[in-house]
């Protein structure tokens, strides 16, 4: 019974995937939709393979920016959340700026950052970090603030120092909230990276999507979009893997 369920849950997305792309393919063929308007999936997949050498450097650039920005955002967000929830003074001093960063649409910061840092990787990674650390920070703060009082009292009854309390009790207590933030941050990182590439420079998948659509090479444009999706999936997979490894307990 269990085996059957597993098989079904594996097959269901595969079948629906095939179904959706077949319908798309059929719809395009039957209605003779022009390729520049909406290419057939088979054409897109073909381009993903055939034009791969052309895409590859851009895939690397995008993946590097997403990954680096994301990996920097995690410790920044965590550290900030730890400070803010431990010291009311830090909270009072910093929370207006964090709110500012969360509520400001990032697109409006890109020209400024370009002016200050140019088009290069540094500017892109900085933008990704600014946009994604805030969700980690916010979710981690929720986790830290929701640590059950009785666990604090346990550590207090032993006179545990702040570092032991943090590592043995506070951090694991907040772990699942932190992972919620990390998941959202991965999405923010990918979105931000692509929007920066739309606006700045001529490397990265975002810039290629713009370029190909300007030349009406919609098929290549779609191929790049699919590669962005794959980057998103890889990030998702990495996070799920890490979460399974790290949170091995049940509450």
């Amino acid at each position: 019974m269990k085996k059957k369920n597993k098989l079904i849950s594996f097959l269901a997305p595969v079948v629906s995937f095939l179904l959706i792309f077949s319908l798309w393919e059929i719809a395009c063929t039957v209605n003779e939709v022009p390729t520049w308007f909406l290419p057939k999936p088979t054409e897109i997949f073909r381009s993903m393979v055939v034009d791969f050498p052309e895409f590859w450097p851009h895939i690397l650039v995008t993946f590097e920016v997403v990954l680096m920005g994301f990996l920097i955002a995690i410790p920044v967000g965590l550290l900030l959340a730890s400070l803010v929830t431990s010291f009311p003074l830090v909270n009072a001093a910093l929370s207006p700026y964090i709110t500012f960063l969360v509520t400001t649409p990032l697109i409006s910061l890109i020209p400024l950052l370009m002016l200050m840092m140019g088009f290069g990787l540094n500017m892109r990674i900085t933008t990704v970090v600014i946009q994604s650390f805030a969700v980690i920070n916010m979710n981690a703060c929720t986790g830290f603030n929701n640590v059950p009082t009785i666990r604090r009292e346990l550590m207090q009854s032993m006179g545990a120092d702040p570092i032991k309390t943090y590592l043995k009790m506070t951090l694991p207590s907040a772990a699942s909230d932190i992972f919620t933030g990390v998941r959202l941050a991965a999405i923010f990182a990918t979105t931000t990276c692509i929007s920066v590439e739309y606006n700045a420079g001529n490397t990265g998948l975002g810039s290629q999507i713009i370029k190909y659509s300007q030349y009406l090479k919609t098929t290549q444009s779609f191929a790049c979009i699919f590669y962005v999706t794959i980057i998103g999936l890889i990030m998702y997979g990495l996070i799920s893997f890490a979460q399974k490894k790290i949170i091995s307990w049940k509450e």
Partner: protein
Amino acid sequence: MQEPKIKFDHVTKVFQTRSQSILAVKDYSMEIAAGEFVSILGPSGCGKSTLIRMLDGIIDTTEGDIFIDGQKVNYAKKKMPQSILRKMGFIFQQPNMLPWFTVRENIALPLRVFDLKGPEWEKRVDELLELVGLTEYAKAYPAEISGGMLQRAGVIRAMVHDPEILLMDEPFGALDELTREQMNMELLDIWTRTKKTIIFITHNIEEAVLLSSRVYVMGTHPGRLVEIVDLDLPRPRTLSMITQPKFIQYREKLEGCIGEIDLSKIK
């Protein structure tokens, strides 16, 4: 007279909340000798937990002083030093295990926090696991074992650093009747063997009479001491004593005390 192990000297605690100040414990005094088993009995909200939280340095006192071995332990606004905290083990109402540690890691937690290293301490963990029958669950996670086992783990975690005093805040209140009786007998057994000083908080009259040598009865509004009842019952205590006339007499006396508290609340 011998110096008391634990002494409360006119202790008062006021909780200051945003909207009001709550007088949780008013002018409370008691003296407990080394090796005694005493209970604190009272209806919920009368300040029992507040009392032993002050003793264990989790919250501070508003007025009055607390002494352990003649040494004043309540420093206003300052954390209680580990040298004093090491003398005590705290058993919570819930098992309060940390779910990311195995049963053994949970029990050994005080050793890590108090920096007690060496094979003799690790051996002690294993002996305690053996004592309460948890050896084969040492590597299990808290979510994988029963409520009774969890509370046993809570008891031995409080004992692992070899404290002289055990503070128990309604430790078996959440357990079913049968498990609770069994745990009570195990606790008496542990006490007989180790002669630790035990403060046992409960709102169960029978439990208080069965376990302790003296009962401090507390009343509410404000939380205060209303009666001290010495229990002259032979040891070792057994469950069959519950039906003996003397036991029933004590039980009725305590019921009377509690009843008066309830009546005074209505007025």
